[in-house]
């Protein structure tokens, strides 16, 4: 564990990008210290300083929308946990609490025509891409009004209208599918890019490596976003991966890569914008390792006995929403009244989503056999 002063230096360095293996070799590894469990207050303040600088460059309306989406995502998932425990949601239910800055920071840098594909932890990303909380909650309830008519549930949110290519249930399976979506964008000559989300555990699947190889070989406009929440179900990264840095794995494919602090929505946004620029310019792919922390269990059935409450608490001290709010306040963009208003709007939206889901009918029995074949 380096001293606080050393860590501050590390923070500043992480904004550097390593492209095609030319960046400082140890950079991504250093990034790991950034989110080590013992976090210094100094680091938090440093992070806020850089956030404030970034905030000042952005339109107020966009900043408000970013904060709103983060708060909405948090409240939505808290409600999911509540109604899941009441038996209103069945099956698996993987929550995004703690990771909101990743979805908001990256996806809100996209054009509406850009494509997104993700894993089963997909509720919040679906909403950030433009799907209504109603259609997502009704899907969780297994109702007709759900975004896929109650056929997919928690893990399978899709919207063709919003270029949201789904939540997928096989760890890492979507990494290759997203690569194919980028292949189509290049084939058709559109300017679309793909944000291809997966967790750090998926990196150990063969398809991750197969996909990065093809994307770099064929120059596909695909931005691979590893949401490193540090646990694959109950197995920590250090018990499952021989190397520490995921970003650095891109260098084996001579692919641009960057390590990003996933608690900092502005840092995520900036890194994504750099990746999008590369992708739109000549189709170059990027691997972003965005470090976050999942507050909840892997799914609702996970008791979480593989980590301590203390560990979770330490991450919550630098919560992405609290950090963003503090920065916005210090930058004098918004104050407590604005935050209260945003909270209220989010709560109202979640309540409306639950009401819609409750009132939506179950799918008609005839739906069992529709959509099997086109």
């Amino acid at each position: 564990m380096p001293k606080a002063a050393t860590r501050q230096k590390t923070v500043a360095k992480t904004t550097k990008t390593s492209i095609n293996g030319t960046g400082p070799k140890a950079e991504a590894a250093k990034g790991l210290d950034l989110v080590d469990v013992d976090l210094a207050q100094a680091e938090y303040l440093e992070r806020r300083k850089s956030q404030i600088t970034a905030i000042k460059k952005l339109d107020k309306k966009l900043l408000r929308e970013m904060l709103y989406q983060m708060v909405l995502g948090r409240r939505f998932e808290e409600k999911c946990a509540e109604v899941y425990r009441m038996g209103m949601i069945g099956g698996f239910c993987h929550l995004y609490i703690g990771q909101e800055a990743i979805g908001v920071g990256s996806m809100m840098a996209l054009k509406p025509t850009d494509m997104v594909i993700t894993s089963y932890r997909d509720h919040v990303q679906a909403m950030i891409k433009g799907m209504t909380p109603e259609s997502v909650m009704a899907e969780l309830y297994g109702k007709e009004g759900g975004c896929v008519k109650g056929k997919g549930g928690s893990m399978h949110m899709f919207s063709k209208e919003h270029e949201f290519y789904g939540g997928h249930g096989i760890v890492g399976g979507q990494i290759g599918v997203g690569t194919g979506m980028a292949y189509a964008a290049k084939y058709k000559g559109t300017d679309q890019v793909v944000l291809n989300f997966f967790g750090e555990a998926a990196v150990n699947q063969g398809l991750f490596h197969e996909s990065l190889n093809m994307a770099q070989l064929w120059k596909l406009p695909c931005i691979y976003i590893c949401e490193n929440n540090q646990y694959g179900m109950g197995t920590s990264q250090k018990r499952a991966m021989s190397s520490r840095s995921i970003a650095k794995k891109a260098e084996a494919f001579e692919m641009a890569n960057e390590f990003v602090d996933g608690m900092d929505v502005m840092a995520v946004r900036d890194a994504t914008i750099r990746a999008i620029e590369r992708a739109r310019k000549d189709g170059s792919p990027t691997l972003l390792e965005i470090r976050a922390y999942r507050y909840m269990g892997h799914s609702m059935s996970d008791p979480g006995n593989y980590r301590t409450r203390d560990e979770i608490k330490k991450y919550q001290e630098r919560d992405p929403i609290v950090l963003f709010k503090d920065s916005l306040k210090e930058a004098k963009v918004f104050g407590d009244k604005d935050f209260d208003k945003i909270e209220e709007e989010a709560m109202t939206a979640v309540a409306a989503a639950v009401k819609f889901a409750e009132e939506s009918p179950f799918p008609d029995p005839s739906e069992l056999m529709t959509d099997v074949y086109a």
Partner: protein
Amino acid sequence: MAVLTIRDALNQALREEIIRDENVFVMGEEVAEYDGAYKVTRGLWKEFGDKRVVDTPITELGFAAVGVGAAMAGLRPVIEFMTWNFSILAADQIINHAAKMLYMSGGQFKVPIVFRGPNGSAYQVSSQHSQALEAFYANFPGLKVVMPSTAADAKGLLKAAIRDDNPVLFLEQERMYGNKGEVPEDEDFIIPLGVADIKREGRDCTIVARSMTVPLALEAAEKIQQEFGVSVEVIDPRTIKPLDIDTIVNSVKKTNRLVIAEESHYFASVGAEISHTVMEHAFDYLDAPVKRISTAEAPNPYAKNLEALALPDVAKIVAAVKEVCYL
């Protein structure tokens, strides 16, 4: 009509569809510069270039996934597996992704993709290169499974598969690539998926055969006609899924006897499915128990004599027909 090999008929289908639809492209190992491991894609790369005919790394799961994603985003990929044996590496993409995408997305995302390549045994390539996988894949809703046995069928069915909006698994047979037959030259010559073909009409016994067992069944039928004066009908379903069960049932109602000849293993095979369905629909018409000829219940061996012993052949089919006809 031109006389073509199955290989060239497939090539013609690919070529015509590449020209017809700009979203059609062919992707796989050695399909471009090398002209295809079995030369099915011969000349296509030279004619159409890198965009339409794409060599991949040896990365079956990877390029199958690229195909699925590209199809979801509006293209019509034709993905070649050098042999279907290697598709097992990509089975997650075929079964968990391609087959289920339309359903899981509530009808929003179609996956119009063709996976094709040789299925079943070749010549002494031993266990890992000799598997007939149709029963495995046909078990999953969302997939279509096609197995041509003639040059004309190969062309017409492949064109139909490419134009289909569903994932279609197109299973060829390496031993048959050189088989010749008349092929219509019409560029819109299509054989709809799910329609069986009566390859030989008969009155006394029905053989249902597919892919490599079709020529064997036809030879067996001719032998039995000559030796015993028994008239055998040979039906090729051509598409395993959807299966044209009506044509088979109607034939059994006429002949009252059924032999199924197939290259896959016996246990839980497509033949078992056909046998069961015939029992359901034509139980009262059967004059003998249905007989099935399959590959031995062992991994395929290398030694020439053992391989011959394992696979279906004319003599085995003749013996089965004699048995159901009580000859």
